[in-house]
């Protein structure tokens, strides 16, 4: 690992007058191959690297990053960061975490595939081809495709501080995705499915992914617009996960100290129905969002964000915690401009309802399978997004629906969750079971 390079950079920062500094280094190599209608379309090989540095001049700080690891460039990086730190304002909350809080022993979370047996590029292309072929063959109405993609990625991370801390870890990820197009009577519908995992063997069967994507595209054919109505709305696992993400975003430190969150001043209060428990767990072995420590070297763990409807914790890095008079929850993430807050494996825990029973419980309602647009106001929780899905009639999925919106307020929506499915699968970094919301406005004609 290139932690030595990082340590040298931090030493130089201190020599240049920084009172403290920390840095994060990521090195990544990846390969992607896409095929379309059976033909190879794009192959990409790449290596990327980035060193991000944060320096403190007393209680003032600045950040810099570079992908150029030449000596001259790294020296310039340090000089610019220390120069910038001298012009920024003092902030009593700025600073590194206490060295005593840094992770002592980095756990092995099985985030790297060390099994070897690297397939050839041809074999990787064949995986994408198999995935797309399964989509095209599974239904005669699947007549076109935006293509299928295979990717693999190896990343090495290192974190170091001017206190002398230096640790690192490695991850791998592998994935396939496909986007088939179904057509009938001049109408075209596209959908998508994917599988991604830390280990090569964890990726789902490419043909199964292809068939799922085809099924999703075909079931959209014949979509109609409906009359504007207020009905129960069921979010499938993918769209429900986006609701969970919105809650986490409102619970993150920077949104809170900026007073730009609908969860402000709600810690310890009921923000959702009793069936709702939301957990962020960074230590799941092989988890797509797992990390042994956060972007400030603090041991990552399991945080209960919402327990049985009550907001139990925010998601904080050191700075936002100090701003709020709290302790970091070890959710720091490094981004280009310094430190941000991010979730790890974020999930709404499963309930006991079978998804089919949730659907069966609705006389007339909307089953949402895709959301588009950016209509979420994190300050007020007001929610209005474009939606695609299936209309529920007498407890059964009756016909596809498109060109409608679903709208409400996230607090009211979470309070109105009256069904939580038993179908949680950690398919991505954020996951949810099927969720049923008692009533929402669906706008159409």
């Amino acid at each position, binding site marked *: 690992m290139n932690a030595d390079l990082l340590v040298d950079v931090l030493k130089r920062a201190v020599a240049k007058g920084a009172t403290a500094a920390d840095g994060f280094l990521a090195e990544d190599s990846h390969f992607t191959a896409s095929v379309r209608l059976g*033909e190879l379309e794009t192959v990409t090989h790449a290596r990327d690297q980035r060193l991000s540095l944060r320096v403190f001049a007393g209680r003032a700080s600045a950040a810099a990053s570079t992908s150029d690891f030449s000596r001259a460039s790294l020296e*310039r990086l340090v000089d610019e960061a220390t120069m910038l730190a001298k012009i920024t304002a003092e*902030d009593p909350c700025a600073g590194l975490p206490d060295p005593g809080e840094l992770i002592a022993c980095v756990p092995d979370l099985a985030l790297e595939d060390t099994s070897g047996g690297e397939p050839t590029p041809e074999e990787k292309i064949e995986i994408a081809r198999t995935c797309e072929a399964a989509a095209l063959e599974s239904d005669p109405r699947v007549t076109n495709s935006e293509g299928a993609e295979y990717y693999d990625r190896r990343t090495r991370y290192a974190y170091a501080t001017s206190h002398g801390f230096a640790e690192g870890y490695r991850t791998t990820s592998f994935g396939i995705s496909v986007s088939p197009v179904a057509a009938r009577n001049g109408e075209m519908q596209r959908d998508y499915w994917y599988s991604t995992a830390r280990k090569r063997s964890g990726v789902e069967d490419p043909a199964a992914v292809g068939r799922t994507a085809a099924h999703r595209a075909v079931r959209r054919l014949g979509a109609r617009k409906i009359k504007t109505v207020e009905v129960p709305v069921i979010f499938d696992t993918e769209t429900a996960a986006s609701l969970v993400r919105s809650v986490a975003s409102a619970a993150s430190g920077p949104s809170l100290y900026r007073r730009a969150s609908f969860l402000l001043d709600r810690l310890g209060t009921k923000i959702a129905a009793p069936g709702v428990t939301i957990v962020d767990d960074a230590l799941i072995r092989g988890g797509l969002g797992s990390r042994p420590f956060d972007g400030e070297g603090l041991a990552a763990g399991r945080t209960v964000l919402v327990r049985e409807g009550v907001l139990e914790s925010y998601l904080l890095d050191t700075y936002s915690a100090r701003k709020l008079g709290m302790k970091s929850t070890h959710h720091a993430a490094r981004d280009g401009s310094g430190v941000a807050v991010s979730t790890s494996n974020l999930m709404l825990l499963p309930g006991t309802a079978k998804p089919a029973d949730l659907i069966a419980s609705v006389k007339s309602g909307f089953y949402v399978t895709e959301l588009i647009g950016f209509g979420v106001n994190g300050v*007020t929780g007001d929610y*209005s997004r474009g939606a695609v899905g299936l209309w529920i009639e007498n407890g059964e999925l009756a016909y596809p629906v498109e060109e*409608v919106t679903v709208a409400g307020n996230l607090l009211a929506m979470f309070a109105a969750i009256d069904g939580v499915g038993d179908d949680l699968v950690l398919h991505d970094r954020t996951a949810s079971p099927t969720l049923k919301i008692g009533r929402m406005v669906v706008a159409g004609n």
Partner: protein
Amino acid sequence: MKELVPTRPESFFSDRFNVNPSLMEKVLGSNLIGRVDDADIYLEYCINEELLLEEGSVKKASRHVSQGAGVRALAGTRTGYAHTDDISMQNLEEAARQARAIADRGGASAAVALPSRGRPHDLYTLAEPPVAADLARKLELLKRVDAATRAADARVTQVIASLASEEVVLLIATASGWTVGDIRPLTRLNVTAIAEENGRREIGSHGGGGRVPFDWFLEEERWRRFASEAARQAVLKLRAVEAPAGAMTVVLGPGWPGILLHEAIGHGLEGDFNRKGTSAFAGRLGQRVASELVTVVDDGTIPNRRGSLNVDDEGTPTGRTVLIEKGILTGYMQDRLNARLMGMKPTGNGRRESYAHPPLPRMTNTFMLAGEDDPEDILRSVTRGLYAVTFGGGQVDITNGKFVFSASEAYLIEDGRVGAPVKGATLIGSGPEALTRVSRVGRDLKLDEGVGTCGKDGQSVPVGVGLPTIRIDEMTVGGTAV
């Protein structure tokens, strides 16, 4: 910092990395020319500076450097792409070999790349690029923005102001023996205000920028307008009522609401989706897709605009492409790959986020030409509807043509008069249909202030939009008031 502002891309890459056009051509010649249909090498060096003010002082400052080279080989419909962040002849040779491997995999193709020679524009040469402007002046501006936003209304409790400045130096060598460079400045000032009253909180944002010098923010006191706009929006929304739900007449204000065009038709007219037949507009050239009042262009040649380029990221000079003329679909936006495969001409729309991404057909500045109506008359013509003047983001499903864009400042229209402000709501429509319902077009065409960023296939690029006031006879508004 002056050293980071080169006069010519050729000398910049030659001085810093010992890579020059003749060496780039050698890499192309020895590895790619004659074996593939098209190829290029793209060198990029980017400096980015961000200053963030919150709680009255600038506590966050950062500076980032990205550099790298991308080598691309195209054969038939296949693209091989390799990139490295270490610019050296050895890495270029290696990348070229990796990129070429794709060409060796499949059958030959007949289509040969068109030469892309043409005179690059000179749209944004600046005496002092924004990254080079004095930091003390930038800090001072952010402090004045903070004070002005707070002074605008006592209910403003938080102000977040950010100033981003960027300089990209690039050099492109193509297989047709054409080497061209560009130096692209870009800056943006953004102001966000949080207003509070009686336990209710709201947010307002405004900003602008372009390929302009730092002083542009000071001219006409633009910064002050951004500040007061952010405050005004936040305070206005404190008394917003529930937005209506359902189909109704919608009037869009001038400028940024042009995001309608970007989503409703822009993406659907990008070459790749049409070549693949996956766009709702595929095969519809020459057909009516909008009312005859509607003419829409994509123009990358407007001086100093955020979406403008002297040459696109494949070295093709940008142009002005008429997408819809009096309601008839007349053109697609093309990069070299899709133009070659469709037997069309590249339009200067091949863009990439950075050296780490292969180019795609993308928009530049997309807008509707002005009509003849008085904007006031347009509003007066509506008995019941929604008047939307500011939007957040939008998104489109290219294949079925359904698109959304989210209004952040909108009002009810009652009997021809602008009424109460409503909460944010998403508007949804169908691309091939929405513009057929445009019944009035104002004479007040305005381009946006320069804040747009478009995402496609995980790649972000700066873009512009523009619109005169228009009336759309029916659109679905995604509010909560049934």
